[in-house]
């Protein structure tokens, strides 16, 4: 009886510990965020570092995002043909393709790809700087690491992701077009006309809003985990893992929240 009681006690203790540390880390994240806001208002903005990061996150991710988008568009065309041909609704394929790409697939897939690519790189770079005392050195050289390292990256993420998604939208639609015209014998002009007439501003816009939020999540999580890396190479590795996992999960979660917001609109 006492054994049971004590093990139950130990279990609740563990549970409380987990819950406690969960709220602690939420608190730390909020604190980190508030620091970012505070320093971006009150202190210097490093434009050249922002531009460098913009190229790194945005421009250098173009091939990955392009490839993902084109194959997604192609697959989408094929799969919807399989379904729609069963009730002779093939003419709706351009509509389905453009809607799914702009509202959903381009932002989410670009987000996940960039999280793996740039989010991990950010966490690794900042994590290495942390464990090799480079961030400490910055502090003693009158340079605020938030302004120098973190804020330019976050802004680069917020701005570059929507631009990537615009490119992804176009390439994705082109993927669908290629399949429909070359494989499924659609009329090219009609396909494009259909797409153009069907798509609405809100479709593209909601996708871009998502992209911006994802860009924030990716860079923020990369910076946060890198900045809190501990130990040596192992700690840096762990911070990259955390960064990719947490930003991917948050992307999927926020995707649902933003979708339901625009759904009600």
């Amino acid at each position, binding site marked *: 009886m006492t054994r049971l009681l004590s093990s139950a006690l130990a279990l609740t203790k563990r549970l409380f510990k987990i819950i406690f540390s969960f709220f602690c880390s939420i608190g730390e994240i909020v604190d980190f965020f508030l620091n970012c806001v505070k320093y971006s208002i009150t202190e210097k903005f490093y434009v050249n570092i922002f531009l460098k990061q913009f190229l790194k996150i945005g421009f250098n991710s173009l091939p990955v995002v392009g490839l993902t988008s084109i194959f997604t568009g192609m697959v989408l065309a094929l799969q919807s043909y399989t379904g729609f041909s069963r009730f002779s609704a093939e003419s709706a394929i351009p509509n389905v393709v453009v809607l799914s790409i702009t509202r959903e697939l381009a932002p989410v897939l670009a987000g996940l790809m960039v999280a793996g690519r740039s989010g991990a790189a950010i966490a690794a770079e900042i994590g*290495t700087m942390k464990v090799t005392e480079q961030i400490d050195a910055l502090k003693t050289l009158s340079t605020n690491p938030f302004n120098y390292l973190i804020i330019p990256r976050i802004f680069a993420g917020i701005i570059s992701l929507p631009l990537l998604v615009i490119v992804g939208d176009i390439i994705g639609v082109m993927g669908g077009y290629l399949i429909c015209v070359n494989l499924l014998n659609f009329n090219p002009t009609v396909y494009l006309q259909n797409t153009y007439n069907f798509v609405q501003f809100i479709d593209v816009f909601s996708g871009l809003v998502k992209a911006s939020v994802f860009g924030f999540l990716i860079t923020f999580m990369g910076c946060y985990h890198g900045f809190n890396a501990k130990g040596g190479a192992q700690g840096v590795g762990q911070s990259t893992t955390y960064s990719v996992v947490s930003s991917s999960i948050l992307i999927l979660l926020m995707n649902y929240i933003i979708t339901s917001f625009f759904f009600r609109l």
Partner: protein
Amino acid sequence: MRKKKIIVKNIYKSFKDKVVLNKLNLDVYKSESLSIIGESGSGKSILTRCIVGLLKYDNGSISFGNLNNINTLNDKEKMNYMSKFGILFQNSALLDSLNIKENLKFSSKQDSFNKILNEVGLPNSILEKYPSELSVGMQKRVGLARAILKKPEVLILDEPTTGLDPIIARQINLLIKNLVKKNKITTITVTHDMESVYEFADYVAFLKNGIIEWYGEARKINKSRNSSMINFIKGID
């Protein structure tokens, strides 16, 4: 007349169960050169990190001039406080995404670094190189140049000569001596190199078991009766 610059009072610092600094007291005097010696892992680097404000101590106080307890400074004041120090980190801590010139620019906006590079015994050609292209000893000298260029109130050097050949080590020792004796910069040097101690230390503090076990004038170090320090200097276990 010696004037106190930094007063470390009853500093306590631990990591989980491991006590590193255990109510340590130490005074650092203006325009003097203090060497901190002690076994590897005794807490020398931790102590200097506490002094410059990079690490918060658990208990006690560190005062600097009219600042009473640097643990209580807010972010802005902390930045201001840290800018008084020129620091050579144990592993140099150069920014590895920037070349040497850009690294030095953090300390001084000047365009030409010929003089300082000459002083630390490096050729000008390294300015365009990246830290990863330099040897550890060269990185150390760039780190030293970066610390000196700031013209800091207090210079903190964590093992400035470790990993250098005897000739360069001697040159560095003389350079530091020059800075301390001529320019009267307050200097705290963590070192294992007794050459450095004999060359430019005015006072020596021996750190062991979380406290300063021996403190005294550098020239009297060999006459000390503290056996653990004598053994440390002589390299006896």
